[in-house]
């Protein structure tokens, strides 16, 4: 793990990440830019500050463990420690501890105190972190609101003692400052513990609540063991249900059809002085010899760093008109139906569920993989008219804001859930005591805004998610149908018992019929209604058989 070794990538990334308006500022004021615009990276309200800090730290722990093939054990403690300095805020402490690879002492200032220092930037992989902004932003927020930096303890494998230090951001120079460094005993072979004290407000429940993040993260990470303690609550433990550390596939080179002209030109800068045809062949996937033949010969022989913008434009547009194989889908990863089925049991007592893992596919020229899990929660059985609880994930990170514009929500509302037995008002989310989790994994997720909270609803992506949902809906409907048939039979039996005698008695009273007529009529009525229930019994048997068949298939 060497965030330090990425100086070159960081420089490039500055150009890409900073908004145009700040072009004029020098690279050393990157930290200044972010410290003034923390709302863009998740610190736009008191409650979001707590959630974002937690999320940046946990995502980093998960990424680091995954990278090193470690089964993560993560402990989270969130406490109120006093009143905040900002009006209506509280002083909050967030501690996240992992058993990951640890961070070298020298790297601590870069990781926690320098923006755009990342080991993951622009690599086209499905990691949670992508940019090298997250944790430094958390440090900045703590620094600005409570004048304290990130308190870190970290130990790498083979080290006898752990490093403990406080890191602050040197905002003027985009540098981390290391303070109070000491080596201490720590009773574990390796890991990292980060602590932030800052102003914020704790929101536990609801869509944007901490619990939603923690449970959502548990759901899509079956291999994680979570311990968490929220303010005024007991320590909770969610055990792992899978012993397989997900293998994050290596990135594939970008596909030229997925790029815009600007990105295309920027991509060439990574290669320095090489012939254009070499750059194209090495720097992109799917540009084979046949495709190269169709491109302007004159340009291919020149050095790529000597091309003018007009040359690039010419080259770019001729590449766009060449037929290329679709990008490879080998760079995505899935949780898998098996692991999802186990993981979803961790969300609460569940009476039935259905999971679907779609094959990787290409949407808008980018590889994606969709997975869906739907479960019915026993604890919520009374909430039949409430909309289902939607859990959205982008590269296994829960999305908790701006739900209505999201591709996932568009897809859910476009499905006719009534045909699977769920209630659904027109063009709305379905209703009932369900959790509906949709995971989108892709090395290139297109977000709708800078704070990465909604996935752009392109037609192709929405359609792919919709298919996954429909498959899950079909599986779910077997459960619902079997249950409905059972209820139907139950109700019919109850109806017969309840209404049969009342009906006959009423008829007898009005007509003044004799007792023996009453008796015969009652018997006749039971016979008639009995025929109806035997029909319902048959339907129930058929529905149960269909469900069994499906469960059998899932077990295989």
């Amino acid at each position, binding site marked *: 793990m060497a965030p330090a070794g990425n100086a070159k990538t960081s420089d490039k990334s500055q150009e890409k990440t900073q908004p145009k308006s700040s072009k004029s500022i020098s690279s050393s004021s990157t930290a200044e830019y972010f410290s003034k615009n923390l709302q863009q990276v998740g610190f736009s309200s008191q409650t979001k500050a707590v959630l974002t800090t937690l999320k940046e730290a946990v995502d980093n722990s998960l990424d680091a463990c995954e990278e090193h093939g470690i089964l993560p054990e993560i402990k989270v403690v969130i406490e109120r420690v006093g009143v905040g300095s900002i009006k209506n805020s509280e002083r909050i402490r967030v501690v996240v501890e992992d058993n990951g690879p640890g961070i070298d002492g020298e790297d601590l200032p870069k990781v926690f105190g320098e923006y755009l220092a990342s080991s993951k930037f622009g690599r086209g992989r499905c990691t949670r972190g992508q940019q090298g902004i997250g944790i430094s932003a958390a440090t900045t927020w703590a620094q600005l609101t409570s004048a304290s930096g990130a308190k870190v303890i970290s130990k790498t494998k083979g080290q006898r003692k752990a490093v403990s230090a406080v890191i602050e951001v040197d905002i003027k120079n985009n540098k981390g400052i290391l303070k109070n460094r000491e080596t201490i005993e720590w009773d574990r072979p390796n890991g990292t513990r980060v602590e932030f004290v800052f102003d914020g407000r704790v929101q536990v429940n609801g869509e944007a609540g901490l619990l939603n993040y923690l449970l959502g993260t548990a759901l899509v990470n079956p291999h994680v063991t979570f311990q968490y303690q929220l303010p005024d609550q007991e320590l909770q433990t969610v055990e792992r249900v899978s012993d397989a550390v997900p293998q994050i596939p290596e990135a594939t080179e970008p596909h030229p059809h997925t790029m815009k002209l600007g990105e295309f030109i920027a991509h060439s800068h990574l290669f320095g002085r090489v012939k254009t045809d070499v750059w194209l062949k090495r720097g992109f996937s799917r540009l084979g010899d046949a495709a190269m033949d169709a491109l302007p010969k004159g340009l291919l022989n020149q050095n790529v760093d000597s091309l003018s913008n007009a040359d690039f434009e010419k080259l770019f547009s001729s590449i766009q008109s060449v037929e290329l194989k679709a990008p490879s889908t080998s760079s995505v990863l899935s949780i898998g139906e098996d692991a999802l089925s186990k993981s979803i049991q961790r969300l609460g007592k569940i009476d039935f569920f259905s999971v679907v893992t779609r094959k990787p596919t290409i949407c808008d020229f980018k590889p994606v993989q969709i997975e869906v899990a739907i479960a019915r929660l026993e604890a919520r059985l009374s909430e039949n008219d409430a909309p289902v609880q939607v859990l959205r994930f982008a590269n296994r990170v829960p999305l908790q804001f701006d739900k209505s514009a999201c591709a996932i929500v568009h897809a859910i509302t476009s499905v006719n859930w009534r045909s699977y037995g769920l209630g659904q008002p027109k063009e709305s989310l379905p209703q009932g005591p369900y959790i509906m989790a949709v995971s989108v994994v892709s090395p290139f997720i297109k977000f709708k805004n800078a704070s990465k909270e909604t996935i752009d609803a392109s037609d192709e992506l929405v359609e792919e998610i919709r298919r996954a949902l429909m498959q899950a809906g079909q599986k779910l409907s077997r459960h619902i149908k079997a249950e409905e048939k059972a209820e139907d039979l139950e109700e*019919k039996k109850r109806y017969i018992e309840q209404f049969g005698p009342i*009906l006959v008695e*009423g*008829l007898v009273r009005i*007509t003044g019929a004799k007792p023996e007529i009453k008796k015969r009529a009652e018997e*006749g009525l039971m016979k*008639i209604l009995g025929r*109806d229930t035997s029909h319902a019994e048959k339907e129930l048997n058929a529905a149960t058989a269909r469900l069994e068949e499906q469960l059998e298939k899932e077990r295989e």
Partner: protein
Amino acid sequence: MALRKRNNDQIPEISREICLRMLTDLERAKRPVLHATKCSLDNAIYNPKIGFFTPGDKKVATELNVSSVKKMSRAIFLLEILLRNIDSGAVNTKRELYYISKGEIKGNPRLKPLDFADQPESDDIIDFICEMLEVYREDFNCYANDRGGQTYSQQLIVTETLTDGETATIDLSKLGTSPFQPKNRPQNFTLKMSERIDFGLIVESEGTANTLVANGFTKRNKSILIGSQGVPSNAVRAWVKTIQDQLKIPLYFFGDLDAYTLQNIFRTLKAGSAASLIRNQDYSAPDVRFLGVLPDDIKKYDLFDYPVREQDAQEGRALKKADDALKNDPFFQDKKNKGLAEILRWLLKNKRRCEQQSYFSVAPKDPTMPEKIIVEKIKRGDFV
């Protein structure tokens, strides 16, 4: 005519017959089937000689099975209460019947499954019973608190026979500015004229009806003036029908020029409705004519009209319905009502409407101007 006229002496007998048939079916383990008249436009017949909608032969059958056993049990339960009312002469509204049934159920836990969650549930069962026996709810002594129908006249004398056989006589000329308010029991009124009455006028707006009277309409014209208060209630419909049958005077309707008034208000008054197929014969007055506002009046009197707001849910729906009516409604399709269909077509084409109150714009300083126009139109025969 397909309709049998029943009065409530026969109802107990018919009810018993139906119940007996059900019992016999049950004894043979055969599913009893109840037939009710289908009350919808596709089962409505319009014969211009009769003048109102009568039911065709379509029936809705309810067969006893597990799904219908609740509805049937409820129907028999309520039928028993209604028969008891006929027997004792007790009178109730639907809402009261709802509470009576709840009271019965409270007193007998075995009946608990029948319980009604709200009034629409018991109302549905009452309607079902009426359609099954082809009787009016009023035949079961079940009356609605009908609105509208305030009546003014200097010549009309009403004799009402009460349930206990006593009679009361009301001379409308003695009521001052108070109107006479008819109740929904037409069979109990006998009408007399102290002097020849020239015509009856039904005004859509209650307020405008009051204004006309206050300004002296009934003093100057030997007439009966009635406010219908929008869509006529059963009481208004039956009352106009009674006036038509007993007094045989010309009747005119005066209301807004728009699709809603024409179809929902005027057509219901004149020919009844599809929903009330089994009762139209006593609840429609085919002789009523449409006095206005007529499309021609707009030019003639230079009235203020304005465009239909198609975005407005109710007005938009009325226009759409007008189009449907021209295609499907036997009333508007019949050549006897050609003139009315013509107005609908005019409304669809011009998408304008004109309110009855616009007559007040003709001579703003003369409060009797609307009256003058109405009387002049009647004299000239300027109605449809």
